[in-house]
């Protein structure tokens, strides 16, 4: 999982604490797996953020898969259409400071998360 390595490297560069590093890398792992398993593959964009003294990482996962018909439901813990635990999306949201999702059935899904230094 190259995504995890890239996110870890960026988080280390930005001097994220070990817990913050672990959270953003784990969130990236959940979303990356979703992109692969449900989206049929896609792209990840990593942006380094600067806001006054705060530093952050924004990750955008984009796929052209089937999309998510009911986002509210997909965010609920325990809901899955695959064989997983259904924790990926909701878990990634909890592990991030910012979370947004945009999905259109038949067109694809875009999930954006950001985490800031604490």
């Amino acid at each position: 999982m190259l995504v995890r390595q890239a996110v870890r490297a960026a988080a280390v560069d930005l001097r994220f604490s070990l817990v913050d590093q672990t959270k953003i890398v784990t969130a990236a792992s959940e979303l990356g797996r979703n992109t692969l398993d449900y989206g049929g593959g896609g792209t990840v964009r990593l942006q380094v953020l600067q806001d006054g003294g705060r530093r952050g990482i924004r990750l955008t996962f984009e796929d052209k898969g089937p999309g998510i018909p009911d986002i509210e439901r997909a965010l609920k813990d325990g809901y899955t259409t695959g064989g997983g635990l259904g924790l990926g999306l909701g878990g990634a949201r909890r592990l991030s400071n910012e979370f947004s999702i945009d999905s259109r059935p038949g067109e694809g899904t875009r999930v954006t998360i950001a985490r800031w230094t604490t």
Partner: protein
Amino acid sequence: MERIPILKMGDYLLVTIQVDMHDRLATTLQEDLADRIVKARSRAVLIDISALEVVDSFIGRMLGSIAAIARVLDAETVVVGMRPAVAITLVELGLALPGVRTALNVEKGMDILRQSLSDTVNGHDSQPVAEPADADAQG
């Protein structure tokens, strides 16, 4: 084919997970471990995850499945060596590993397994103990 080694140490099977897990590797590990439990008649499995910097819901699910498979085959599993940052992240993710016993390190994990094995052995081997007179009252 890539495999995770399973070491036999006396009555215990020891698995050290050091590489990134993916679906096929996880499935192979489950099958290998189930085979070894039966072939070696092992009653105890230790899984060392101290090398893992990230445990996501996929790995969490795998650990739960392994513990459940082992239990069905009459073996106890203890997961040892979780890093503090991983524990914090797992709980926030929503995964507290229900049904998986954990210990801080291999040594403490072996203590737990030794204890639970000797409990079972005593339970199986000893003669039934006479019930105290007030056993019914207790419930």
